[in-house]
Every structure is written in structure tokens, then in C-alpha cells.
């Protein structure tokens, strides 16, 4: 069900590791985008947010390894939905396995980024994700009235 967009929920971050969340948010902080991030801590929460609450983030950052409902399941649900499928999904995972890449893209992921271990690299990636998907990338929503 359609609900008015919330400015606070431009980025939906679906991640179960609190440390990773902490670090990611820290980085967004530096770009003054912290307030634009909504966190879902597991798959179910993400689904609830998207399908029950009806949030419409501008970009979804999705970890694959999630409790309750797996990242791939969430991805599938998103890309099956007629409306939500337009939302770019960035898979953000520790796994560099080819298999995971294949399945993710197969389900319609718009991007797959491997989480670096080194923090400086990690921070750079986050920044870029924010910049690219928030600023640079065009989405169909941009042309609809807010």
C-alpha cells in the first residue's frame, strides 16, 4: 500500500552485523547522509518495512547472510514486486563467491559489492555507494511527483 515517502528513508540498509551497521552509519555520517538511512536487522524486518509499511527507499543495500529470511529471498521478493522492482538493490556481501554473484544477478540485483575488510577501503565503498545511487543514478521516481 502506498504511503507518502519519508525523507528519512532514502537508503534502506538490510544488515544483521551490528558492527558493520555501526561502521556503515559512521561513514554515512561523514557525508551527512546518516539521517537518510533506515536499518533493517533481518530479512523479515526488511520485508515488513517494504511490504507492510510500504516504505519506498531510493536504494536498498542488502547483505546476503541474514537471519529469518535470507538476503536472496528478500531480493527475490523485492524484484518480484511490480513497484519495488524499480528500486535499485545493491547487494553488499562478504562473499566473493561466483555462485553468489550469479544468483544475485539472476534474481535481478542491480549491483553486487564485496565488503572490503580494510576499513579505509570499506569507507570508500560506502561513500561511493551513497554518492552513486543517491546522487548520480537516475530512477524512475525522480520524475514522479513527490
Amino acid at each position, binding site marked *: 500500500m502506498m504511503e507518502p515517502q519519508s525523507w528519512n528513508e532514502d537508503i534502506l540498509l538490510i544488515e544483521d552485523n551490528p558492527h*558493520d551497521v555501526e561502521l556503515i552509519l*559512521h561513514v554515512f555520517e561523514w557525508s551527512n547522509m546518516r539521517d537518510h538511512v533506515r536499518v533493517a536487522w533481518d530479512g523479515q524486518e526488511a520485508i515488513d518495512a517494504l511490504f507492510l509499511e510500504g516504505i519506498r527507499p531510493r536504494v536498498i543495500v542488502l547483505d546476503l*547472510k541474514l537471519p529469518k529470511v535470507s538476503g536472496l529471498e528478500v531480493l527475490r521478493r523485492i524484484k518480484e514486486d511490480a513497484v519495488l522492482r524499480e528500486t535499485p538493490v545493491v547487494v553488499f556481501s562478504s562473499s566473493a*563467491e561466483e555462485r553468489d554473484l550469479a544468483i544475485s544477478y539472476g534474481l535481478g540485483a542491480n549491483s553486487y559489492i564485496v565488503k572490503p575488510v580494510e576499513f579505509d577501503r*570499506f569507507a570508500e565503498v560506502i561513500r561511493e555507494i551513497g554518492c552513486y545511487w543517491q546522487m548520480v543514478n537516475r530512477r524512475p521516481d525522480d520524475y514522479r511527483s513527490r
Partner: protein
Amino acid sequence: MKRSSDTRPFSQTLYLATMLLVIGIVCGMTLVDYQNAEKNLRDHQDLLENETEINLNNTLHLIDSGLKLFDDTMNVQMEEGLGLLLREYAVAGGDPERMDLVRIRREAFRDKMDIYIINTSNVIQYSTYPPDLNLNFGEDPVFASYLDRIRNTSGFYPDRVVREPETGILRKYAYAPTPDHRFILELGLIGDRFREERQRLKYTDTIQRIKAVNPYIDDVRIFTIQKDQVGNRQFKPDAELSARLDRAIETRSGFEVFDEPSGRKVRYCYVDLYDEQYGSDLSMIVELAYNTRPLADALANLLRYHLLVAFGALGLGFLGAALVSRRLARPIQTLVGDVNVIAGGDLDHEISSSQAEEFRILTSSIMTMVGQLKGTIEQLRQHQANLSESEDRYRRTLALVSDYAYCMMLAPDGDWRLVWTAGDLRPIFGRTSEEFDHMGGLPAIVHDDDRRILERHIEEVLANRPFESDLRVFDRDGTVRWLSHHTVPVCDPADGQVVGYYAAGQEITTRKRNEVALRESEEKYRQLVEDANSIILRLGPDGRIWYINEYAERFFGFGPGELLGRDVVGTIVPEIDSKGERTGDLVHAICRDPEGHTINQNENMRRDGSRAFISWTNRRILGEDGTPLGILCIGNDITRLREAEEENRRLNAELEERVRRRTEDLRQANRELESFTYSVSHDLRSPLRAIDGYVYLLLHEHGEGLSDRQTQYLDLISSNARQMARLIDGLLNLSRAGRGVMKVQDLDPSMVVKEVIDELSGERHDRNVEITIGGLPRCRADPTLLKQVFVNLIGNALKFTRGRDVARIEIGSRREGEDTVYFVRDNGVGFDVRYAHNLFKVFSRLHPASEYEGTGVGLAIVQRIIERHGGRIWVDSAPDQGATFYFVLGEVENDGTPVVE
């Protein structure tokens, strides 16, 4: 144009002929004309002469006639005188002595006439003219005869006026014989001077006239027969003239005298004026002196003229002849020229045509001939070509078969001389034709045992019967060769005589040997079949046993010959076997269609009912002429084999079951490993990230209050965390290298290498790196894994050459036998090869991490990948001498390891 010394060109001949003709004609004509002209001239001259003479004659006659007439006028006078004299004679009584002649003369004749009295002796006995006294007329026979004639007659006989020889006075005489015939009385009247003159003039006129008419006459002189010249009283002839005049007088005819020196012709004409009536002969001799010079000159001129004309004519004639001959000869020459060209070989040369019909005919005939010739030549050429081709084929054929066939022609005598051989005799006889002939041919090289055969052969052939024999000969090194030798006598079709012997043959050594071998083989075969330890049957299409070998009989427990003719089913083949198969039907099917069952196995039974398993090979056999000889079945007892097979099968099944289970276990294990790895990587990495993240934040956001040592420790925590992450990555890579699906494909390693070098270009930044890529033949490998290999090897090479001024890295390959050995060589720091065995172990390092970073997993990964490709890897190095890593890839297919769920 060829010209032999013996033949002349036609034109020349023609020219000569024409010239000769011309010469002949010209000369002839000239001659004829000249002769004609000459004759004409001469005739003319003669005519003139004749005319002149006739004229002269006539004139003189006329004159004489005139004179005669005149003379006769005095006859009367004289007659009277003589009459008077006769009377006086009579008076004197016939005695002249008594006559007074002087007185008579004076008185009667007034001294005008002289008297003469001629006695019977013709002598003037008495005369008044003393000079004539005793003149003897007897000296003049003519006159004497006249006197004699008139003496015995009577009458008056006047004579002509004549000139006295002595005095030259003219006198007319007359005679009268005395009646007594004793004397002739003569009177002589003296002539008239006037008349003399006139006479003389008349003659002179005549002469002049004659001279005028006839230009040839030089001079004319008229002489009396007394040799006096008329008109010239003083003339006295010289001896020569006298003689000539005498001649004329005597012959009373004219003649000609040619005076050589002066070239004068003198003709003497005798003008016969003798009248027998008169005593005196007043005949004259006319001397005509002709000057032949005018004639000669005229003739000379004529000759010159003629010669000139002749030359001119000849000249013209020669010219004309030349032109004509050339004109005539040209067509011939042209024709000759053209024909020569044709004869020289250019058969297509055209003959230029000529106007003359004969030439045209000739030309067309020649062209026809040439055409035919060309045709014939073409035919001949064709024949020749055909012949050459045929000969060539023949030669080639013979050359081909020289190895085993030969043919030759032998002379008809008993020596067997070789007339010719086609091809080379060496392959068969080991000798050249000359050697063969020299030795004496076959008899010299025939095998002793076959000599009798050869003798028989020769006997037959000499008896004109073609013969064929198989015999052995020795070739040069004593090897025995079998020949199938045919000889045929060749006869001359005309007379049936033998002109030679044509011998041909082929080497049949192999055939003979084969025959022997076949016999032996057949023997052996029989032996073999009999002694074989195989079951050998021959069955008819209905399944009846036509033949069974001894071994088979024993095997099946039957007696010798017991099974012959019996159906194989029911005797050694059970109708239904132990398993319930309808073997009987099968065997009958085989008998009907052996080709469909060349190999089969079925249960057989022995006499005692026990079973055996036999492997059969079935084949329909036909005789040489196609007659079926049954179905040959050769069987091998495979009972034991069968049992072993069964056992094998059972074991195999067991084994397979075990393998399946094991594989299942392994798969299971793999799956577990996969998920383990997966979660490991995930779960191990996250804490490390947290560590590094928080440390970073500490350092960068709260770092002012930290001491150096604190900072240092924090750095260490961070770096260690990163190191651990790298190790985990390495392990993950290793694990991935070890499992995962291999997608083997045919690829070009050099592309992979180039890709890797590109990707590693960051490592080469600011360094002097020389990378050489040699020939890298294509191979079969998983591209990703192979790339991993090169990433590690080249990466290592770059790492360990860091200390060099110029880092030299070589990637190439070489062949070792059938394998392609790839290598990566560097000129880096190298290592002691004694520790090489540790090199490929996980986490083993030969250099301290402080000098050369790394996880120590790279080479383990490389080795795992190479192993998975069925290959092997090894290394060569020495400290400070760089290192070379070698690897070979084995044959490997996609291993089909299923994707881990």
C-alpha cells in the same frame, strides 16, 4: 637459287638460244642479203658487161655493116676493074708475066688500085705494090682456105676494106679467080682517108659511149685481128698483150684476165665480123679493162654496210634476246623461286600467278600437288603422332612391366641371336640385352633340371609350332627365377618363310613360390585343423554336420565320424539351454545367415549332457568357383571364462556400489566443505572488518589524545587484522582452486598471460621491468584457474625481482617429448633449491614476510590447480640467480563435479 655447275639457268639458255637464233637469223639474213646484193651487183655488173659487150658487138656489127655497105659501093668499081684485069689476063694468054700491071694500074685504075696476082700456092706472085710481093697468104690459114675456096670457082669476090698491116693504109681488095684457076687476081683500092677518120671516130664514139654507159670500164681498146689498135696507128702490142690477142684470135672468143695487183679485170671480146663472103676477116678484139675497184669498193661498202647492219641487228637482237629471254624466263624464274620456297618446307607459300596459260595450269597443278602434299604430310604427321603415341604407350607399358615381363625377337638361325628386345632385361635376367645375347640366351642360363624342358621347347618351336614352357633360370648372382616362356615363329606373309622367333614371357617366381607355399600351407592347414585345440565344424545350411575335427569329437565325447551328417542341434547344441534360451533356434538362424552371426556365444552340450560354453566364429565359405562349402564354425571353450566373467561382474557390481557410496560421501563432504568455507569466509571476515574499522575510527577520530606507542599498537592491531583477512582470502582461494567446477576448454595461454600482465601493470609502475613472452601453444585448461596460475607465478616473479635494476621476466614454453612445458622465469632473488619441497606447502615461506609479503598460499593454489589439470609443476632456482617455475598440463576433461548447492 641453287645453280649446279652443270646446269645453266633457263634464262641463260633461253638467252643463248635466242641469241643464237638472232645471230643465225641476222647472219643468215646478212649473208643472204649480202650475197644477194653482191650477186645483184655482180649480176648488175655482169649484165652491164654483157650489155656493154652486146652493145659493143652490135655497134661493131652495125659499124661493120655500115662499112660493109660502104665497102660494097666500091664493088662495082672493082668488079669492072677485075673484069678488065681478067681481059688483060686473057689477052696475055694467062701468063701474068706478059701483063704490064703497072700500066694497067696507071691507065685503067688511074693509080687508085693496086694489082696483085696470087698463084696456087697462095703467094702474091705479081703485084704493083712491091711491099706485098711474095706475100704468102699461106701464113693465114683462114685466108688461104678462102683463096682455095674461090680459086676453083669463077666470080667476083669483093673483100672488105682493111688496113694494110705495114703501112696502115686502108685498102679494099677484091678477088677474081682466073678461068684457068691458076691464079687469083686481086685488086686493092686505097681507102678514103675521110672515111678513115670517120671510121676512127665511129669507133671512138663507140668507145666513149661504152665507157659512159659502163662505169666499171676503165678503158676500152679495140684491136684488129692484126693486132692493130683502132684509132692508134702507132700501136704495137707488148708481149703479154700480143699473147692475149693471139689467144682471142685463135679461140675466136673472148676471155677474161684478172690482173691481180692492180685489181683490174680485162675482158677480151672477140667480135666476130667474119663473113665468108669476104676474104678478109675484119673481126675485132675489144679489150675492156674493167676496174674492179668500184665493184670491190661497192662490195666492200656493201659488206661494211651489211656488217654494220648486221652488228646493229645483232646488238638489237642481243638486247631483244636478253629482254625476251628475261621476259620469258621471269615467270619461270618466279615459278622456280616460289616452288623452291615450297620445296624448302613452306608448304603454304603462294605461287604468284602469271598471264600465260601454261603457267597458270602449271601453277594450279603445283598448288594442287602442294595441297595434296600438305594433306599427305598432315596424314603422315598424324600417323607419326599416332605411331609415336602408340610406341610411347607401348614403351611405357613395357617399361612398367619390365620388372616381370619381357619380349624379344630372335633370329631365325639356330644361334638364337637377339634381333631386338623391348625394354630392359635387367630386372628379370640380371643382364643387359647385349650380355644376354653374348652369353647365348636362355640355354646358357637355364637351370640344369629344366634343361630338358627347354630342349623340348626349342624342338617344338623349330618345327614351327608355338610353344610355352615354365622353366627356371639363374640370374646374374645365381638367384633362381621361374619364367613362363612363350615362343612363336614369325613368318613372312609373302612366302611363309620363318623370319624370326618372337619370344615373350613373364617372371612367375612368385607365382611358383606361391603355388608351393599354397600347397604347403594347405598341408599345414589340414594338419592344423586336425591337430588344433579348437573345435572346428563345417555345417550345412540345414545345420547338418559336414565336417568335425578330431579335437571337437573328443571334446564333445563322441566317437570318430559319429556326428557326421547329423543335425548339430540335438547333438552338441541343446534345444533349450540352462537359462531357457532357445539355442537350437539360434544355431539354425546362424546356419541360414552366417553373415549376421559372425561371432556368437552359446551353450553347448556334450554327449553326457554336461554343458559347456563355447565362443563361436562363423563364416560361410565358398569354393573358388563360388560353390558353397558350408559354414565354417570355429569354437573356443569359454566355460571357465564365462564363470570368471560372472565373478568379475559380480565383483564389479560390488565395486561400483562401493564407489557410488564413496562418491556420495565425498560429494557430501564437498558440500559440507563448501558451506563451511562459505560461512567461514563470511563469519571470519566480519570480525576482522570490525576490528579494523574501530581501530581506524579510534585513530582518526580520537587519535589526538593517544601517545605514539598507543598509536603504534593500534596500527599493529589494524595491520594484523588485515593480514588475517589476507590469509583467509588465500585459504578461500585455495579451497576454491581445489573444488569448484572445472570448465576445460581449448584456449590460447598467451591471451591469459597478456591479461594477467595488464592487470599487474600497477606492480610495474616506477620500475624497469622487461617481460618477454615466448611461444605458448594452445592447451586445454580452465581459463579462470589457468589465469590464477599465471597471476600467482608472474606476481611472484615481479615481487622477487624488486631488488633488480632491470627485472627480467620470461614466460614461454618448450617441448619435452610429447609434452609442452610452460615456464615462468625471473632474474630475481631466487632461493636455495634444497628447500624447494616446502615451497608448495600452505603457508610455507622461504623468505621472511618482512622482506616479501604474501600469504604463502599462492604456490599451493598453483599446485592444486595444476594437479587438477592432471599436470605437474616443479621449480629450479639458486640463490640470487632467479627462479624458473615449470609446469605441464595433462589431459583432463570437465570433471563434472556438480555445483554445490
